[in-house]
Structures are given as C-alpha cells and as structure tokens.
C-alpha cells in the first residue's frame, strides 16, 4: 500500500492505497468525486481531465501517488457549491455545448486550462486544435467550440469582478 496526501478542491485528503491506483480511480472510487469520467483506456478521450497544480492532466494516466502533495481540482471544485457557476460552465449551457454530458467535465476542465494558457481571445482554429486530446461523440464539436470561445471571453470579464471560489 502507498500513503498519499493531496489537496482536492481545496480540501486536504489522505489515503492508504494500492500503488497501482490511478488518480482517476482515487478521485472516483476513494473520494467519490464521480464527475471525472473514464471514457477510454489509452489516454485518448480526455473525459478524465482534471487540474493538477493548475495544469490540465489526464487523470487516467498518472498514479495517485505520483502527485503526492499536489493541488487537484476536479469539475466539482470549479464553482463553489452555493455560488454561481464558473463562466465556462455557464457558456457550455448557454451554447448547448453538451448533449449526453459524459465528456463534458473533461471538456470544461480542458477549456479552462486552454484559456489559462492561451488567453481570452480564442479563435476557432486555436480552439479546435487545442481540443485534440478530448473526444465528444454527440455534439460534432460545433457548439463546444462556440461555448469555449464565449466562456473564454466571459472569464476575462469575470476576472474583473474579482474573487471566485476557484480558478
């Protein structure tokens, strides 16, 4: 067994886990944060994307012990439970950027990371290229691209308004 300690969505957590436990398994099975999904077994689909120390990571591709001491944020931590939605979440709803909802948490976490790295003025080509690690079978990406562009702009506006629970 391996001891792990990390911060997940602002809360300190510790565990004693089988060393082969993937981060996504730790989040889903041990912490019961089931918003992070598993869509493949080859690190292709991006349904499991979370933020580790502020960067997007496919949580199916790291062992939980590898990020001992890290700060992890999952889709559940993007907005405060009683606060407003994160602008990217709101943009996905407003622009119908989801259908079945399975890829959505990974898409949103990737989108926020994209904005963190590329800024708030994202053109269609950039967004489509940056989504190379996330698969969606429902939407044909059209509305996801629109949602991310709008969400990116809204995040700029939101930053002006000051503090949010996360990001």
């Amino acid at each position, binding site marked *: 067994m391996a001891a792990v300690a990390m911060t997940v969505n602002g809360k300190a957590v510790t565990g004693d886990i089988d060393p082969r436990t993937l981060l996504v398994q730790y989040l889903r099975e041990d912490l019961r944060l089931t918003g992070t*999904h598993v869509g493949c077994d080859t690190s292709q689909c991006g349904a499991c994307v979370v933020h580790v120390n502020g960067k997007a990571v496919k949580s199916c591709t790291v062992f939980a012990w590898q990020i001992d001491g890290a700060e992890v944020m999952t889709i559940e931590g993007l907005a405060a439970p009683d606060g407003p939605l994160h602008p990217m979440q709101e943009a996905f709803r407003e622009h119908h950027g989801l259908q*079945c909802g*399975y890829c959505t948490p990974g898409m949103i976490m990737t989108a926020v990371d994209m904005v963190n790295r590329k800024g708030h003025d994202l053109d*269609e080509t950039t967004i489509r290229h940056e*989504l190379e690690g996330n*698969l969606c079978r429902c939407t*044909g990406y059209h509305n996801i691209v629109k949602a991310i562009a709008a969400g990116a702009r809204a995040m700029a506006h939101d930053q002006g308004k000051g503090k949010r629970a996360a990001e």
Partner: protein
Amino acid sequence: MSATGIGASVRRKEDQRFITGRGHFTADLHRPGETYAFFVRSPHAHARIKKIDTKAAAAMPGVLAVLTGAELAADKIGSLICGWLIHSKDGSPMKMAPHPALASGKACHVGDPVAVVVAESLSQARDAAEKVKCDFEVLPAVADPAKAQAKGAPQIHEAAPGNTIYQWHLGDPKAVEAAFKLAKHVTRLDIVNNRLVPNAMEPRAAIGEYDAGNDSFTLWNTTQNPHVARLVISAFVGLTPEHKLRVIAPDVGGGFGSKIFIYPEEVVALWASKRVGRPVKWIADRSEAFLCDAHGRDHVTRAEMAFGADGKIAALKVKTIANLGAYMSTFSSSVPTYLYATLLSGQYQIPAIYCEVDAVYTNTAPVDAYRGAGRPEATFVVERLIEVGARELGIDPVALRAANFIKSFPHQTPVIMNYDAGDYAASLKKALQIADIKGFEARKRKSAHHGRLRGLGFSTYIEACGIAPSQAVGSLGCGVGLWESAEVRVNPTGSVEVLTGCHAHGQGHETTFAQVVAERLGIPIANVSIVHGDTDKVQFGMGTYGSRSGAVGISALVKALDKVEAKAKKVAAQMLEASERDIELKDGKFTVAGTDKSLAWGEVTLNAYVAHKFSGQELEPGLKEGAFYDPVNFTFPAGCHVCEVEVDPETGASEIVAWTAVDDFGTVVNPMIVEGQVHGGVAQGVGQALLEGAVYDQAGQLLNGSLMDYCMPRADNLPSFKVATVVTPSPSNPLGIKGCGEAGAIAAPAAVINALTNAIGSEALAMPATSQSVWSALQKAHRAAA
C-alpha cells in the same frame, strides 16, 4: 410562441448536473456490499473451448466466484435473442443460432466472454482473471462478409449452413428486369459500406443486485430501452419473471443504437449477483467496447440504376451482403432489410425497385443498429448512384435530382413506404442558396491557383422515422409493438411529472417534453419534471432510438395531456358551477366562456385532490392520466446536405471547407437542440466517410481496437456547420413532428464522397476516404489518363 413553448430554444434543464459533475451514470453508482466482475474473453475469433480450469483463479485473494458457460447452463439461463423474424425469399425463417451469455463449447469472435470472475475489488477480479486457464482449439475463422458464404468457408453455427442467416428480397424483379432492358443508360457501382464502432463516450456498464428477501432483481444499466431489456431478460433469457426484475437506466452517456441491445454482460451481472449474494458491478473498458459492443453498417453491395432517355430513373437493382457478426444481436435482422431496402426510393420517383439481401454470420463482433441503421446505407447507394449517373450522363447532378423528385404526396414507393409529406425542391433550393453554389466555380479556381482541388457534393436524403406503427412492423416480423406511452401526473400544487417510456441519453427530453407541457397547460417550465428510465416508475415504454422520441413519445404525451385537460375542466366546471363544455384553458387559467369567472391552474389542481367541491359519484378525485400512442405511419424527414471539400493532390489530405444542412423535420420543438442533433449526426457521417472503419484481419483479429488506432472525428477534423430547416409538418401525428436524431449520419457520407470524387475526378474511392486512399485514387486516375 411563448419563451419556453414549442419552437423556443430553451436552454436545457438537464445541463446543471452535467456541467457541475453531478450526473449519475451507472459507473458512478455504488451499492452497499458491491463486488466487481471482470470477464475472461476469447483471444481467438473462432475456437473450440476444450476445458476451462478455474481453480487457480478461484483461490486468488478476494475472489468470490469464477463462473463459466457450464454454470450458466446448469442454472438454465437462456440464450439472448434477436427480436425481429425475417423470412427468406423461399419462405423459410431466418436461421438464428443460440447466443449464450457465456460462450458454451465454442467462442465465435474475439472478445466472446468465456468466464467471469467476481471479486471484492476490480483489481482482484482482473488479477484472478489472468489465472483462468482456458484450453482453446483454434479453428479457421472468417471475418469478411463477402467470403462467409464461400464453399469451404469455416462453418460458424450449425443452425446456419453456409453461414447464411437469410436470403431476403423486396420489390418486383420482373418489372426491374424489363426496365433495365429498355434503359438508355445504366450506372453501376460496387459499394462497401464500412464497418463502424459506435463508441458512445460512456462505456457500457451494469450493476446487478439480487434481493433474497423478495426474490427479485434490480439492474442498473446503460440502456436506451430499460423496458425492452426487462422483457427480454425475463421472457426470453428466463432469469426471473418480469415483475421480479426492475431495470434502471440512470444518466446514459450516449448510445447511437449501441445501447438498445441486450448484451451478455448485464445478464451475467444479474445472474452472478444471486450466485454470490451481493451486488455485482461491471464497467466496460474501451477495449471491451471495441470488441463486444454491436458494431454498425458492414455491407457489401452491387447497385445498378437504370435511366430512361428523358433522364428519369427507370429502375433500381441492389444486391447486398450484410454482415451480422458472430451472433444475431437484438434487432440486427431488421437493419439490412426493413430499415434499408424500404428507403431505396430516396426522394425520387422510381417506378421499379428490386433489392436482395443475404445476411451472414462471421467471426466478428455482432452488428446491429447504429445511428441511422440501414438508412445511411440506403442513402449512400441512392445518392452515389444518382451523382455518378449524372456525371456519366453529362447532366448537372442538381438538375438530375430535381427532375426525379417526388412532387406530390402521399406517395407510394415500390418498396412499402408511403411518404406522407415533403417538399424536396424547397430544401434543395434553400441549400443551394446557403451553400452559395453560384460562387463555387470562382472558389474552385482560387483553390486551383493554390494547387488544391475543390469539390462539391450533394446528398438529398430521406429517412423513415417515428418508429413505428405496431401492426405494420408486426406484419414485417417485429416481435414487439413500437408505440410509446406517457403518463402525466399533476400534483395538488399544480406542478407536473411526466413519465415517459422514452429514454434520453443526450437528446434533452427533460427540456423538450417539459416545453410541450408548459405550453399546453400554461405553467412555468420549471414546474415540470420528466421521469424516465426506471421500470418501477414508468409502466412500459419502448425506449429511444430511430429518431422516435419526438414523433412517437411526444405524441403520447400530447394524448395524455388531452385527457388531463379534459379531467381538469370537469373539476373546474364543478368549482365554477358551469358546464364543462363552456370551460376554456388558456395560459394557465380556466375561464367560463362569456363570463368573467376564472380559476388559476393551481386552484383547480388542488381541488382535484382535496375533492371538496364534488362528490365521488360525480367525479373521481385526482389528476393523473396516461396514454399509449401508436403511430399511424412512419414519418419521413428529408433534406439536402451540401459538402464542399478541398484536397491537396500532393498528399491526398482533404479538408471539409463548408457544410450546409437543410432538413425538414416537420415541427421543431427546440431549434437549439435540433441543430445540435444535426451537428452530431453529420460528425458521425463525416467520420464514416473520412476516418472510421473497423478492420479485421483474416484471422478475425480486430486490428484497430482502441481509440489510438480507430480514428474518431476530433474537433479539428470538422468545420462549423451551416444548419437550416424547412418545415412541412407530418400529417401523421398531432404536433407534426418528424424526428431529427439520425438525419446527419444518414445524409453525410454520400455528400462527402460525392464532393471528394468531384474534386479528384475519379469515382474509385471507398470509405473511409483517408488521405492515403484519396492519394492512391488520384495516382490511379493519373495513370489511367496517361
């Protein structure tokens, strides 16, 4: 139109839980005392199981049970079935082989489950599965449908000699032969409709739980039709009586057909839960999904279209071999027959059609309905033939289509269908406008200037949705009725729950069904909840597939709302001391015609329950009504998709530079959701045309069984789409809805291939038209021209 009524792009009610990570997919659920199942699967496409030694596995830590086909048979768990009986042209019934949930005696495809390990944890189950010793005698295999019937081909099931399941036909061969003799021109094509892996993003999953106290089972399952699953598992597999099985389909992450079917794993999870006395959870890996989910398409077709001197289509002749894989999946037999040949008339007046279909077993995963199911295959045949025919005849493909359009309705085709309404010229005209066809030649010159080839492709498709009139499908061999049910429960405070037999897995029913209720009863959409996916709550329903939820499910809802309104008016009449004939319901208010007396919706609903204003003799208390709606006809969505591509002749790389979709879905409840359905459907169609194709080698090994090897469309493979509608309401249901879920996947492949072949000037291009195959086709064309 109100802000939330029919025709409004209401933002989806279901989104809140998905965007915050609080959805409840099957794999997210935990049952007290749950255990985990892991399947041992055949690594061979065709092999006799000589012996399975489970001793070492059973002794591994945490293992509760290791079960094989022998235990399954001992417990008298029956075979999975195909529920649509097709007869061959000689009158004999289809030759369906048994399909045990764990292979018995023989494994028939790679991934066929031969044993299951149930353990305290998933990793313990996996570890133990490696210790199961299965002694296989490998047999020769056949994966290619075109080779399955050959003399000397490996015989897969005793029940089906020559691996032939049926030899079916539809249409009038004599009329077709006569027309071909008189034809001025015949266009001939050999078509392979490539095999696709559905790949809904949520892999299949099941939790089986046995309650010994009540001798009953519960199954949480990734299914598009929980009631059909319950019916099949009880009545055919014989696990337990129907009333002792509850099936719950919680949030389901996409289906596209692949989650209609009843699969071995859910049967095993239920059965094993009784064996171990604890809940058994199984979640598919993506690799298992590739090997074991029912695939789609896989047709080999020879098609010929005869044209008269006037450019009119005189006849169509089609011969198809359809691969159904190693076992007949739940509705597999219907896909290459009644969902395929019946659509071969397309949007065209075709006097004579004849189609022959041989369905074959192969040592591959089962093949069944996948988005469009038979209709994409039919559309590809018809739309490639008319496009190539136009090119061969030197006629503008648009003009040839328009000249052959069906213009008056109802129209009886020679292949069963009776089209009730449509305006094909209108969708074509609008598409030409939006796609700026007039500017194409200039764009083509510009591309040429940059060394690129530009091509334009059309697909004027038709589909049959609103599946389906029960009597009609019953007469064609379907084992079930395809009506839909709805129950409207009005609470004392006036809020409403709708229980529907449809099931949403991305379609947004919680919003669209609520829009219909909100508009009809004049109540806020927030006061309406939609309940689906639980056989203990919804009495019965046929589920969601075949673009049926709007045309059939909402029609059932409208019928139930009619009854609710009638009952509510009776209550209002008692309260207002007026005749119920004089009561009107508008904008959530009951009024008495010609007076100023009125009651709010909530006053009437409360009184329906407190029942103080009427006696039990006069009126039953309560406000709850149900309805079963059986369609009177299929619906016929149709439209025109235009694809514009650019090809780099040096590399064969192609890019879709523009996409126009003009569809006629009849009445549209929520345009935002409908557009989303078109986007997704087109993406899957483009995937089929350019990127996707399951490849089996001669030994029956799937060569591209992962998302690293099987090319799913990604964001940068696709353009933004221009989507519009024309509306001719369906006369066959109360709101005039036709259905929109599959149109994109049906229309798109032909539009893409027509565009690419137009660009490269060669028709010899198979799907998926990868860069390599486009490049090869170009080289071949150059050599031929040299």
